[in-house]
């Protein structure tokens, strides 16, 4: 249902052998746009490889004359990359586990257990998505300050364990596609709801929780505002804070900066390439939801 890959209609067979002039125009446009999209990447990679003289060369060199791989090490040392990397990884992992587990749990209750008010609660949860995060920022800041959570990772991790509305929405849609006869059979065998969730539902809805995990990790890895507000001392920082602070330095060493930036980009990029179809699935569900 949510799988857009399968929903792609295979168009009428076209004549592949000959290109009409119209198709040629299309191809040229696609390639042209792709080059524009890739140019910033290209600039970034070449900058990361340039020597100190190379980056301040006038006119700027599109392709560097000499290479310097030491930028990677120097840049990473300058922002204490390894420490910030571990910090970010811990925060991202814990908030991802929390949001996926809690959303799968709540989604199960909303789709598989009949109880009065379950529809209303579903709409309330989904409706709460509409509330801009900024509204809660200052009151939560004060709350965290008063209970001693300021300058800890807890404000970045704990809220994730109480269900993510969008993920609950995704989970609920997916659970509906699992045949009810499966849980009926399990119930006859004496299985409770928790057993059905862990033994039947979670294995059968793998695509949806992988999608959630990717989105959640991505969100935590990229988040800037929350760490900026809550993490005061540098050893506790996330990578997003470290990378942004780099640009605060006067006379930024751009080659080292871009080199470090490339490493910072790698985890999300790798996940994207490995799990591309899950990205499309999650987004596809957004489209299908609006059509319904």
């Amino acid at each position, binding site marked *: 249902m949510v799988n857009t890959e399968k929903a792609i209609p295979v*168009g009428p067979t*076209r004549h*592949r052998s000959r290109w009409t002039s119209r198709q040629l125009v*299309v191809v040229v446009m*696609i390639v042209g*746009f*792709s080059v524009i*999209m890739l140019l*910033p*990447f290209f*600039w970034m990679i070449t900058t990361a490889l340039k020597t100190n003289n190379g980056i301040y*060369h*006038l006119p*700027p060199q599109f392709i560097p004359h000499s290479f310097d791989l030491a930028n990677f090490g120097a840049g990473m040392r300058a922002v204490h990359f390894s420490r910030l990397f571990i910090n970010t990884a811990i925060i991202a992992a814990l908030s991802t586990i929390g949001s996926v587990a*809690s959303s799968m749990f*709540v989604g199960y*209750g*909303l789709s598989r*257990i*009949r109880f*009065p008010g*379950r529809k209303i*609660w579903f709409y309330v*949860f989904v409706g*709460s998505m*509409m509330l*801009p995060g900024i*509204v*809660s*920022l*200052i*009151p939560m*800041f*004060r*709350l965290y*300050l008063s209970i001693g959570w300021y300058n800890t990772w807890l404000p970045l991790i704990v*809220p994730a364990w*109480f*269900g993510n509305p969008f993920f609950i929405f995704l989970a609920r849609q997916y659970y509906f596609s699992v045949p009810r006869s499966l849980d009926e059979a399990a119930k006859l065998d004496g299985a409770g*709801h928790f057993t059905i969730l862990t033994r039947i539902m979670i294995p059968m809805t793998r695509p949806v929780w992988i999608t959630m995990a990717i989105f959640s990790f991505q969100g935590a890895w*990229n988040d800037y505002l929350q760490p*900026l*507000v809550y993490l005061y001392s540098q050893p506790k920082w996330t*990578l*997003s804070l470290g*990378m*942004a602070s780099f*640009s605060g330095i006067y006379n930024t060493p*751009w080659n080292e*900066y*871009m080199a470090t930036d490339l490493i*910072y980009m790698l985890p*999300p*990029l790798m996940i*994207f390439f490995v799990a591309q179809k899950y990205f*499309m699935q999650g*987004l596809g569900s957004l*489209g299908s939801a*609006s*059509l319904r």
Partner: protein
Amino acid sequence: MVQHPVRHKRHRNHDALIGYLFILPSLIGLGVFVLYPLVTSVYYGLTAWNGVSTPVFVGLQNYVYLFVHDIAFWPSLKATGLFVLMSVPSSLILGLALAMLLNRKLRGIRVFRTIFYLPVVLPSIATLTLWKFIYDPKFGFANEVLRALHLPTSMWLGSYTMALPAIVIIGLWGVGGTMIIFLAGLQSVPQELYEAARLDGGGDFAIFRRLTLPLISPILFLLLVMGIIGSMQAFNQPAVLTSGGPGFSTNLFMYSIYENAFQNQQFGLAEAQVWVLFIAIIIITIFTFRLSSMWVYTENDSE
């Protein structure tokens, strides 16, 4: 299914208990992370406090100060409005155009879809810092391209007129996100409809106008609303690139809130600003929904 009435009822009570147990995390989350801040923020907007002190009730003073005395308020509102007006339509139009361009069977088309989507995957801070260097007036790539084309160069982020458009351009680099959702929408349009339209002698523009546009209008609407709400809350761009300058030209509202709260320690004032932004978002969203009945096509009008 026939069941004994008493057992049935007990069974239902039990299920209700289990059901609420299952949604308990979200119920707690709703209370602590949504309702509590929502209610208290109304009060905080009516107080003065510096983050450490106890909030002191001052009535509507914060709002009066914002609307009458604050020199940053109206320029920030203007910058945010301009940002929304520039970034939302441009990303919708470009996103739809690219989706239509890529919605065809061609060899290797998936590679191109991936290329267009790639910038979306990058962490926002990585993208912004990359563009900060691209926009460097002396050593940056943007001016290099302009020089190569013999066009006048720009100060980009340092220019009063160009800073905001420069930020919009960065956003357009991530147009792949919009594109991919349009693409999913285009692919759900039954192919037979296009064939029928062509058989009826419909030209490209007529087919786009009469067939494609109505069928994807729900997605267009979704993206429009999400785009408006999202861009009204843009924060990272001014925070990382411009600190709101030059002047107030990129002093987007969210950044202004952040500055008042966490830099100037005027939390009450910032909370009042939050409510101005929140109410503006609600009004604009309702307005967009109202207008939507005029142009969003629904498959089943009787429903």
